[in-house]
């Protein structure tokens, strides 16, 4: 059962990944990417990483894809079909991808995978929340507060960039 589900999700990811890079229409590529990200969330749910799955759905398929789609809508010639890449480039990229896949497979093969049992509920939201708010040993309250500074910086930067470009035209 688990195996069938794994291959089903993997098939979805592979098919839509290939469609993402082969689609000549850029907006369609963005939508195919959405399916890839959602299927990835499926893997997280399979691993009982419920929180990470939720993050994947809200931030990646909810936020990043929206950002990509909006960026595409900002381009002047989005109805323009991308030219198919020339043979030599396609060949070079193909070889490079195969090389990368080889290295990854080699690293995965040579890694001594040890099966260990995780304690029950080690990665559920409550455990994450407790760690996030604890200021004692192995607590993450400082990163938690620093994240808000990071988000603040991102917000200010986004406003500055967008305001600048609107005032120009």
């Amino acid at each position: 059962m688990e195996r069938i589900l794994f291959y089903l999700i993997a098939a979805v990811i592979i098919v839509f990944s290939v469609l993402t890079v082969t689609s000549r229409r850029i907006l369609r590529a963005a939508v195919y990417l959405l399916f890839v990200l959602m299927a990835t969330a499926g893997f997280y749910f399979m691993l009982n990483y419920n929180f990470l799955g939720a993050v994947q759905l809200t931030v990646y398929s909810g936020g990043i894809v929206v950002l990509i789609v909006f960026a595409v809508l900002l381009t002047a010639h989005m109805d323009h079909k991308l030219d198919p890449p020339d043979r030599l480039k396609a060949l070079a990229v193909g070889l490079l991808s195969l090389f990368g896949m080889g290295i990854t497979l080699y690293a995965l093969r040579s890694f001594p995978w040890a099966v260990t049992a995780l304690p029950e509920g080690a990665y559920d939201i409550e455990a994450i929340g407790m760690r996030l708010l604890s200021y004692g040993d192995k607590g993450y309250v400082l990163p938690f507060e620093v994240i808000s500074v990071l988000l603040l910086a991102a917000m200010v930067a986004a406003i500055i960039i967008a305001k600048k470009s609107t005032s120009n035209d």
Partner: protein
Amino acid sequence: MGNEAIILFIILGLVLVGGAFAMSYLVSPKNVTPLKEETYECGIETMGSSWIQFKVGYYLFAMLFLIFDVETIFIVPWAVVMKKVGLVAFIEILIFFLILGLGLLYAWKKRALRWE
């Protein structure tokens, strides 16, 4: 939560969407006229391509949305354990909100929330 839930989710999703299409195909009367085949049955025809460049203002809102989206990710674990941890958790989130509130204040001041 587990594999059964995911399988149930996939099946239910397929049944719901497929069922809605199948039902409307089976139940609806079919009386096709050229007028009904138009893209905008009750509107005016578009002039030129609709694939035009959009205003940059949309992008700003998308960015702000993404930032608050990420913020939610950190608030959810806090909300789950808030009662357990007690007052400390409340103070910690207040600091978090205070810093992010500055961002909102900045956006407000810079008129980034205004549609121009």
